[in-house]
């Protein structure tokens, strides 16, 4: 009876979903463990095993694989051991840490059984079976740099750079390919996030301890995730309801006065619903001024952050999730004498800096896997969000508000066999953004205000075909979007992977991406200076589609090509790997942030000529001794753009262009990471990052004493961390910037913050002294 009822309800629901839309499946169904069982035949091809038995050890919960070898089994609280059996082949027991997709490969009767379990893996690795060059950073890798939010999580990754945006606000940003992090599309469980106003600060609003896994793709990723991936794509997988670990706690304290508490609670609501509560709070008190420049090294303040997650799974193919997130981040810095309760006009001559960011969002997923067709699924992803910020930089106020909505539908299936898979769907992105930049003056009449309002509507369609040809894999994708201000945009993307042999892999990727720059949010670093903000709009007749463009500027678009080669080898009896990445990105349109034209201004204008980024990266991973991993990487990068320059040869006031290296980007960069584990579960992690000389925007026209170097010196930064692991958690203590190398002249004319030469935006090196931190992690495990 109840069975029939359920079926009827299901049928109706699936119809409703079909009418609405569709999703990528692997991200869903967290209550259910999914996987595919294969047999490797004599030709080395993987053939799905039908009717293989899959069950939880010592329980009656079990299933058999479907016609394509796929299975879905509800997770049980009693055990984590999953048994896979097939007549004539070896049964195996897998230890499942969490509900990820499994791929089980059983070799033919010659007896060799091999099981690939996605859990048993290095802390950071490349997915061998994927066509995209994607690095997975697991929680173990994130533990290597225990502080604090996401931007720091990349400290041990050679492809990504982390740096402060200015000398006073304490905001860190990442760079990929020597380009600002804004060209990296950030995804939150496969949905675009950190866009528009939160491009600059978004990373600091995600606590590192909430993260289960980071997937870092070089180059434009899959078309399914949208059009904005230009240099790369970072997908963040948050912790999910995990009944094995009902409570995870983390505390952190550092020498600068920062304290932090994180907690993740998981519980089961009823048979179909589970929930997780992710909480974070941090405080920064009593920040010192170690470098004696009259400015607090880091602002004081707090952040309160919470994410509630509700997961539904009816164990019959339907799954859904609902997430609610709310964060407030408030910082106050600048000169210690500044009173943040008064307006800057009441205390002229004292420089104060403050920021407030509020963000709330609700996002969800809905998906259905057809019981008779394990590869066929539909899904719907949606999110709505609100960001509100109010920042003050001396006599400059910047405030903004963004309302965003996103919906995506995906249908995925196979063509003929599981070797040909496709995903098609649509999405719709809408944003309403208001921004206001005020430059105050002592006499109110000279106050200057600039307001920018924009509404963006972007509907799009996409399709992606994955062709598995055994030793090679193709992913062909294309999407077309209509942007209400910039018209039709087409983004083709292609990825190819070839296994040259069982040790060597080659990947090639190419494609286009585009985005709309949020110039104020992305250049907030420049606001901590006396630079005038100047936007040069389009010439008459150059308007892209006749509608008013954002800030009067063009959208940004680029083409990427990348070649990635990896080779596995044996070194001292253990597995090792080296690889080379060749990447280049050509911009057809870019908003240039020009700090060079005048030290008294930041010019923002459409790319007047060429702009590119090229890089070569060599990386090696070795295990020279037992329990020791060494990662070495070197990167050469060439990032240049044409900048406008007044043409002095013709006294007409015209401009010419000149090609300059992108400032603050080193040509050479190297990294060494050594991880050593003792038998008694002590872990030592040391990372050294070496940065070559960087070009600093010219300050030659400033008076003596307010000029900065033309080129920064090369420098190295070292991180060290010791962790003692226990059965239920860990204690760690670490040092950042062990060599205590700092940029000595951090702020130009720091004694006169309202002089025309004051500039805290020229940060090329570490701004913070050697810093010691300590913390703990505790996991409450449920009874096995």
């Amino acid at each position, binding site marked *: 009876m109840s069975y029939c009822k359920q079926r009827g309800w299901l049928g109706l629901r699936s119809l409703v979903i079909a009418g609405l839309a569709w999703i990528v499946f692997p991200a869903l169904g967290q209550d259910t463990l999914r996987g595919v069982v294969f047999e490797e035949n004599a030709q080395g091809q993987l053939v799905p095993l039908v009717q293989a038995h899959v069950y939880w050890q*010592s329980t009656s919960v079990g299933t058999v694989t479907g016609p394509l070898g796929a299975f879905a089994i509800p997770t049980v609280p009693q055990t984590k051991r999953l048994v896979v059996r097939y007549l004539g082949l070896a049964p195996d027991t897998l230890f499942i840490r969490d509900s990820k997709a499994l791929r089980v490969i059983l070799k033919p009767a010659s007896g060799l059984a091999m099981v690939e379990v996605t859990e048993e893996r290095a802390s950071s690795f490349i997915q061998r079976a994927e066509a995209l060059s994607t690095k997975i950073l697991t929680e173990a890798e994130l533990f290597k740099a225990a502080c604090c939010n996401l931007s720091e999580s990349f400290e041990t990754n050679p492809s990504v750079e982390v740096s402060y945006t200015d000398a006073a606000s304490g905001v860190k940003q990442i760079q990929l390919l020597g380009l600002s992090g804004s060209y990296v599309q950030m995804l939150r469980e496969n949905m675009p996030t950190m866009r528009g106003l939160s491009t600059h600060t978004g990373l600091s609003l995600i606590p590192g301890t909430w993260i289960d896994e980071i997937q870092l793709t070089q180059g434009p990723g899959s078309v399914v995730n949208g059009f904005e991936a230009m240099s790369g794509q970072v997908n963040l997988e948050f912790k999910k309801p995990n009944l094995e670990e009902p409570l995870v706690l983390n505390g952190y304290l550092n020498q600068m006065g920062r304290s932090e508490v994180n907690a993740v609670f998981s519980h089961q609501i009823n048979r179909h619903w589970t929930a997780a509560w992710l909480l974070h709070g941090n405080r920064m008190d009593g920040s010192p001024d170690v470098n004696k420049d009259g400015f607090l090294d880091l602002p004081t303040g707090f952040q309160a952050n919470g994410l509630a997650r509700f997961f539904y799974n009816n164990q019959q193919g339907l799954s859904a999730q609902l997430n609610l997130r709310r964060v407030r981040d408030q910082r106050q810095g600048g000169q210690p004498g500044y009173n943040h309760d008064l307006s800057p006009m009441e205390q002229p001559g004292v420089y104060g800096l403050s920021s407030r960011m509020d963000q709330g969002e609700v996002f969800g997923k809905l998906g259905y896997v057809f019981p008779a067709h394990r590869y066929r699924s539909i899904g719907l992803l949606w999110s709505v969000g609100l960001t509100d910020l109010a920042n003050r930089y001396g006599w400059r106020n910047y405030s903004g508000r963004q309302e965003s909505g996103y919906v995506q539908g995906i249908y995925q299936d196979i063509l003929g066999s599981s070797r040909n898979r496709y995903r098609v769907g649509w999405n719709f992105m809408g944003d309403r953004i208001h921004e206001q930049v005020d430059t105050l003056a002592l006499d109110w009449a000279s106050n200057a205000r600039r307001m920018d309002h924009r509404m963006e509507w972007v509907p799009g369609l996409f399709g992606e075909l994955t062709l598995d040809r055994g030793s090679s894999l193709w992913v062909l994708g294309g999407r077309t979007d209509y942007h209400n201000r910039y018209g039709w945009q087409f983004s083709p993307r292609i990825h190819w992977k070839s296994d040259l042999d069982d040790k060597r892999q080659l990947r090639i990727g190419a494609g286009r991406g585009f985005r709309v720059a949020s110039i104020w949010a992305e250049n907030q670093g420049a606001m901590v200076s006396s630079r005038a903000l100047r936007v040069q709009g389009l010439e008459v007749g150059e308007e892209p589609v006749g509608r008013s463009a954002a800030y009067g500027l063009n959208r940004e678009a680029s083409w990427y090509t990348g070649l990635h080669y990896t080779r596995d080898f044996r070194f001292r009896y253990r597995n090792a790997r080296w690889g080379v990445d060749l990447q280049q990105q050509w911009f057809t349109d870019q908003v240039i942030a020009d700090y060079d034209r005048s030290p008294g201004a930041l010019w923002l204008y459409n790319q007047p000529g060429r702009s590119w980024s090229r890089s070569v990266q060599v990386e090696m991973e070795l295990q020279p001794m037992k329990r020791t991993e060494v990662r070495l990487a070197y990167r050469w990068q060439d990032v240049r753009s044409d900048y406008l320059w007044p043409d002095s040869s013709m006294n007409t006031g015209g401009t010419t262009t000149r090609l300059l290296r992108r400032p603050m980007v080193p040509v050479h960069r190297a990294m060494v990471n050594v991880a050593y584990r003792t038998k008694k579960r002590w872990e030592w992690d040391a990372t050294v990052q070496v940065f070559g000389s960087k070009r600093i925007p010219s300050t030659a026209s400033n008076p003596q004493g307010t000029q900065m170097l033309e080129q920064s010196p090369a420098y190295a930064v070292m991180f060290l961390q010791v962790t003692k692991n226990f059965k239920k958690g860990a204690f760690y203590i670490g040092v950042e910037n062990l060599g205590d190398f700092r940029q000595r002249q951090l702020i130009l004319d720091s004694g006169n913050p309202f002089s025309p030469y004051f500039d805290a935006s020229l940060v090329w090196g570490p701004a913070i002294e050697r810093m010691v931190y300590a913390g703990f992690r505790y996991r409450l495990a449920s009874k096995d």
Partner: protein
Amino acid sequence: MKPFLWSLLIWLGGIAFSPSLQAQTASKVEYRFTVYGNCGACEERILVALDQKGIVAAGWDRTKQEAWVVYRPSKISEDQIQRFVAAAGHDTERFKADSAVYQSLPDCCLYREKHSPH
């Protein structure tokens, strides 16, 4: 700054490559011997047991029921190596595990009752 940087690189280089220098003076021997077990959990336990001074690298092949080690004869003997494995609960070709230890193994590892090497 420069000297600091260089000393750092040399130090790290030392970490990465010093074992290979030692390797030239101490000779290493590859050795294979039978070890019984069933599953992935067994493999993990056997590898932990083989993580001993004098053993450079180790592995276990379930289908062949065979452990593989690279060891330094100057520091450890074949008997000692096999004893470490037996002490963890896995019978080897020369030593039988203590039955109390064996009984404490998880179900899937009870190879004496349900031996499934394939």
